[in-house]
């Protein structure tokens, strides 16, 4: 799949010197759903705002569909739809007017049939003549989505679309996102719920303190989650793993001083007893053993701690 959004070494320092983005590199493929997972203050909104032109980057390069967001901002921005984190809407405006406005603002010719389709898709059609202030919170968020979709964006940013939304609405939102993906839109959404990223994303990026810590396919990431490693330290270094111990789950450390066994804590048997028996059979002498969580677990545990603080 071709890259539709390319972010290279993006940095952003706010006035006052605070560095909210510390060199972010991220490539998004056409048609995928990427979830940016990170605690409050991680820099998710800053990243989106910089790509969309709401704040200016301190340095770095961003292209959308090959168009530079600075030098070729019209072409780049025409491709982007943004659903902001805050519900920013004019309370006295009618739903249909604000959606029409968005389409016009992006330079697209009037197309009432198109707007009707979008509003129906979001179950807003019977509210089209209502004033924004008459709508519930969930509906307001849909209006924001309708505005973002009104100009046929190819890349859609959803900044915490389900923050402060009840369970039912969250499910609705996930369905909407799945529907958009089916229609070919590339979606980048931010969230601080692991479950949300797990439920809808193709890939997950983890961001904290202005740094993108990792980006990985959801399935691989989830497989790594819940795994632990057992490190078996040896008295004498070895050059290769003895035949009896060879398995995809067993690795030799770089210095040959330790065997590293990855196992699933959720599985019925961890296989540790068997492994240790085989170690003894192979004539290896143990110096020590240690277990640790995979680095990903550490990240998430860290994130949760930060969230609780």
């Amino acid at each position, binding site marked *: 799949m071709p890259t539709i959004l390319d972010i290279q070494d993006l940095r952003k320092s706010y006035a006052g010197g605070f560095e909210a983005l510390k060199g972010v590199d991220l490539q998004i493929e056409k048609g995928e759903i990427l979830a940016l997972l990170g605690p409050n203050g991680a820099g998710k909104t800053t990243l989106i705002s910089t790509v969309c*032109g709401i704040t*200016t980057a301190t340095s770095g390069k961003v292209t959308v569909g090959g168009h530079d967001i600075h030098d070729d901002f019209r072409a780049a921005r025409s491709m982007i739809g943004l659903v*902001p984190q805050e519900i920013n809407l004019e*309370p006295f405006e009618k739903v249909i*007017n604000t959606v*029409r*406005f968005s389409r*016009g603002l*992006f330079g697209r010719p009037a197309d009432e049939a198109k707007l009707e389709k979008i509003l129906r898709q979001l179950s807003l059609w019977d509210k089209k003549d209502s004033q924004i202030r008459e709508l519930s919170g969930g509906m307001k968020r849909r209006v924001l989505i309708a*505005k973002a979709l009104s100009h046929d964006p190819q890349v859609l940013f959803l900044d915490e679309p389900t923050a402060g939304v009840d369970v039912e609405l969250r499910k609705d939102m996930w369905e909407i996102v799945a529907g958009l993906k089916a229609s070919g839109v590339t979606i980048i959404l931010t969230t601080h719920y692991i479950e949300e990223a797990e439920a809808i994303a193709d890939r997950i990026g983890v961001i904290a303190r202005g740094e993108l810590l990792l980006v990985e396919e959801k399935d691989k990431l989830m497989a790594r989650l819940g795994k632990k490693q057992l490190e078996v330290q040896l008295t004498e270094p070895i050059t290769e793993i003895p035949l009896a111990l060879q398995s995809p789950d067993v690795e030799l450390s770089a210095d040959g001083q330790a065997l590293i066994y990855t196992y699933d804590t959720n599985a019925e048997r961890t296989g540790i007893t068997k492994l240790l028996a085989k170690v003894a059979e192979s004539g290896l002498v143990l110096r020590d053993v240690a277990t640790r969580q995979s680095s990903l677990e550490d990240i998430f545990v860290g994130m949760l701690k930060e969230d609780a603080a």
Partner: protein
Amino acid sequence: MNWTAIKAIYTFEMTRFFRTITQSIISPVLSTSLYFVVFGAAIGSRIDEVEGVSYGAFIVPGLIMLSVITQSISNASFGIYFPKFIGTVYELLSAPINFFEIVIGYVGAAATKALFIGTIILITAFFFVDITIQHPIAMVAFLILTCISFALMGFIIGIWAGNFEQLQLVPLLIVTPLVFLGGSFYSISMLPPVWQVISHFNPVVYLISGFRWAFFGSADVPILTSLLAIALFTALCLGVIWWIFRTGWRLRA
């Protein structure tokens, strides 16, 4: 130029105006009528004529200018400040438009509203006094130019303002006094010599004088000076707008 976007901003702003159309019409009609009753009838009965024009007719250009200037500023400043205040400005900033297109949309709409109100005041005035407009084309041109230049100024104030108080500050502390002291209700030549000199530092004097010339063919200052003054003022506002565009001042973090 993204004309579709400009039109979208313009239409959106005008819709807001027409949503409160009765209020938009009634209030200038009412206040103009009051001015005629208070100034025209009460004071006018003591002053017969100013520069060969009845006092009631004499104050018409000043009255129109007074409203048009205040309206242009408040419409344009509110127009751009409001999206900043409620957060909808994100859409303007992320749209494929440049700053000048935003300016044209908002300033155009604000100037149109002010022009509309100026016209209503003129029509109202016809019910109270006899006026024949000597230079109708110059009158319209002057009116439009005033609407645009003060809407530009209002736009700048709206960009600058960080809260509602600041939004009111400049109009209240600077513009309103200048307009009232700008000869709306009197001729500069009626003032003591010292005040005549001081008045020449008030830019609004040139506007009102020029506008009055279009009505009656005579003025406090030569018409060319008036034209030059408004041209300078417009150029100044455009210069500031250009600078804001270059620096992204107060719009983008």
